[in-house]
């Protein structure tokens, strides 16, 4: 649209486009003032100042939205150019109006699109880099800044992508492999970030060319795959342990056959030999060796999960507290114990005696690793939601909540290459001959059998951390043995913490436990009809009643209540006396599992 306007703001000429757009006849427009045509407000607010500026000698250009009867409300670009009819004097102005509505919409769309792409690129969990053809970084997105562990893009854009490669030659090779307008996957590459940390990344590149076919820039996509690598490794470990487990389980099974033969013949030999003879003692030594071998095959079977665990509903926090107390009583002075074991409900299905072994073993390992330098062992327990667990698990998640136990020390730590192997049976970092190296593999077996997970992280000279996840059980009552209902057991405890765990186990299995303080109290309980126990369990390191006293009381009062004796691996003379006194119906050797003691109790109650 073109019009010519004079200094009185009057239209002097308009073209036909103007007339068509405004749907007016040319004669009605000519001679009309801008104010009349556009209305007083529009003229005063929007038009007049631009017109005046033009009459002062400038070309004025601005954008305005107005209504035309032909096209409705649209966006226009308006240009006022000064015109001179008389020399040296601006008498008129030439007004040109262009409909830029479509252009404006397109521009807006482009801006929106660019914003969207920027947002997409910066929120992308994959690192994105644009570099010049020799690798100088032009632009990096947020994800790459995270991988690079660098705060701002400014620093990054001063660098070359080559600087992040662990091997610079590899970067050159990658540049050579790029061909015009094609993307290329380089697979996993180790990068080092701004702090020198090595990070495994999956990298692909795209080389873009300009109009003349020359390299313009290279786009790199960089994906941090350390998590993926860690999970892959963990899965591999789990599969390896599974394979070793079934192999070792098979061997343990065959070994038990052989041990049964050795043990059988040596028992027969023992019967043939005169008691207390030198030869008889030698045979006893064979039997002790068989027992030791059996304990190893048992551990292997536990590791390979070939042993059925007896499970009851127990609060892990209680077992942890007892184990903690036990460890605390014999800790070297240079080691600090820290714990947060709040009163909480952390119910799981487990054999408490097994859990005691697991916790004890982890704490003992931690303490040993700090023996020389001293340090701190921190033990924590918490209940976490399944959502927090799923990233840590290779196996199915079976519960809504998990108990998370943490054992963290500041000891020697482990070489990263060893971490993957510590759950293998017979793997040990100690000197040859110290321990069987079965400890952690057995722990792994026990935790896996409970459908839990054990995870270790460690740094040489900084310490190790073990995380154990156990599924929280929602059962409210646990169906116990019918035989155990209302059966009373008099429990003469030994070392209080280990006994506490055993009593937690028995109470959870449905037995009623009676405790006594001394011999007098014992006789009183035994002779009160209402309280009389169905059996007695005596731990040989008991402080309340000595073995001799126990024998005396049983004989004097002619008690016939069956008695189970729990001893250490090495029998004391007093233990032997008890065993020969005919009071003891059955003897168990520590560590006693819930299954063993339950079997023994059921056998006696039959």
């Amino acid at each position, binding site marked *: 649209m073109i019009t010519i306007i004079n200094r009185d703001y009057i239209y002097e000429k308009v073209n036909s486009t103007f007339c068509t757009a405004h749907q007016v006849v040319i004669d009605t427009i000519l001679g009309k003032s801008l104010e009349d045509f556009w209305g007083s407000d529009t003229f005063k607010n929007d038009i007049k100042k631009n017109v005046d500026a033009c009459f002062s000698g400038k070309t004025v250009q601005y954008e305005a939205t107005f209504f035309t009867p032909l096209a409705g409300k649209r966006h226009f670009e308006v240009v006022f150019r000064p015109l001179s009819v008389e020399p040296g004097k601006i008498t008129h102005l030439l007004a040109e109006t262009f409909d830029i509505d479509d252009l404006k919409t397109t521009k807006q769309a482009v801006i929106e699109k660019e914003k969207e792409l920027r947002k997409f690129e910066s929120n992308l969990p994959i690192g994105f880099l644009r570099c010049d053809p020799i690798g100088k970084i032009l632009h990096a997105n947020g994800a790459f800044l995270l991988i690079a562990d660098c705060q701002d893009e400014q620093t990054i854009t001063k660098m070359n992508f080559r600087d992040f490669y662990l091997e610079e030659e590899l970067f050159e090779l990658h540049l050579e492999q790029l061909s015009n307008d094609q993307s290329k996957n380089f697979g996993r590459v180790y990068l080092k970030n701004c702090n020198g940390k090595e990070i495994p990344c999956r990298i692909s590149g795209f080389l873009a060319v300009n109009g003349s076919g020359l390299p313009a820039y290279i786009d790199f996509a960089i994906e941090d795959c350390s998590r993926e690598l860690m999970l892959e490794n963990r899965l591999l470990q789990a599969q390896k342990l599974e394979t070793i487990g079934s192999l070792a389980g098979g061997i343990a099974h065959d070994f038990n056959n052989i041990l*049964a033969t050795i043990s059988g013949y040596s028992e*027969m030999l023992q019967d043939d030999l005169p008691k207390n003879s030198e030869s008889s003692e030698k045979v006893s030594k064979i039997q002790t060796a068989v027992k030791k071998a059996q304990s190893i095959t048992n551990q292997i079977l536990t590791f390979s999960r070939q042993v059925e665990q007896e499970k009851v509903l127990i609060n892990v926090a209680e077992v942890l507290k007892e184990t903690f107390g036990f460890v605390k009583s014999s800790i070297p002075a240079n080691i600090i114990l820290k714990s947060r074991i709040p009163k909480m409900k952390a119910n799981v299905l487990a054999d408490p005696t097994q859990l005691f072994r697991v916790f004890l073993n982890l704490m003992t390992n931690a303490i040993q690793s700090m023996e020389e330098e001293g340090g701190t062992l921190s033990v924590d327990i918490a209940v976490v939601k399944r959502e927090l667990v799923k990233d840590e698990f290779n196996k199915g998640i079976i519960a809504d909540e998990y108990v998370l136990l943490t054992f963290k020390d500041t000891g020697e730590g482990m070489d990263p290459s060893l971490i993957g192997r510590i759950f293998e049976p017979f793997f040990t970092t100690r000197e040859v001959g110290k321990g069987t190296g079965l400890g952690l593999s057995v722990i792994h077996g026990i935790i896996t059998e409970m459908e839990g997970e054990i995870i270790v992280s460690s740094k040489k000279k900084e310490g190790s951390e073990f995380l154990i996840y156990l599924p929280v059980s929602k059962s409210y009552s646990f169906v116990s043995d019918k035989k155990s209902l209302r059966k009373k057991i008099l429990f003469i405890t030994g070392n209080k913490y280990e006994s506490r765990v055993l009593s937690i186990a028995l109470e959870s299995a449905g037995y009623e436990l009676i405790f006594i303080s001394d011999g007098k109290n014992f006789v009183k309980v035994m002779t009160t009809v209402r309280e009389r126990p169905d059996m007695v369990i005596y731990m040989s390191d008991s402080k309340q009643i000595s073995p001799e006293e126990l024998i005396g009381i049983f004989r004097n009062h002619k008690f016939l209540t069956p008695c189970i004796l729990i001893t250490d691996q090495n029998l004391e003379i007093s233990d032997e006396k008890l065993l020969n006194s005919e009071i003891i119906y059955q003897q168990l050797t520590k560590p006693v599992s819930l299954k063993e003691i339950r079997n023994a109790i059921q056998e006696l109650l039959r």
Partner: protein
Amino acid sequence: MPGVLLVEDDKELREMLKMSLLRRSFTVLEAENGKDAITHFKPLITDLVVTDLIMPEEDGLKVVIKLRELKPSIKIIAISGGGKVGPGSYLNLAKALGADAIYSKPFSINDLILKIEQLLDNEQLS
């Protein structure tokens, strides 16, 4: 004397068991796997069976089921060196299927003999 059938694929272990039973004057019958035990079962002279559980051919669980079916009054003791079927152990499964007693290897031979005598004594009483 009562007859005891030994079902055990480990030859040395079987011979040890046999010797200890002969010392107590039991009549001893032998089978080296489950299939053998079932096909050559002699109900008239067999009062008690000691059977291993994990064996080639038919396993011990089949022996427990089949012999109990062929002679309901028979006494059965299962012995095993470990192993699980699903979540439960072979031994507990054998017990659930009708074994009178179970022992995990290695066991005390004297305990086993005592148990055998006990089971057979009860038999005579009833």
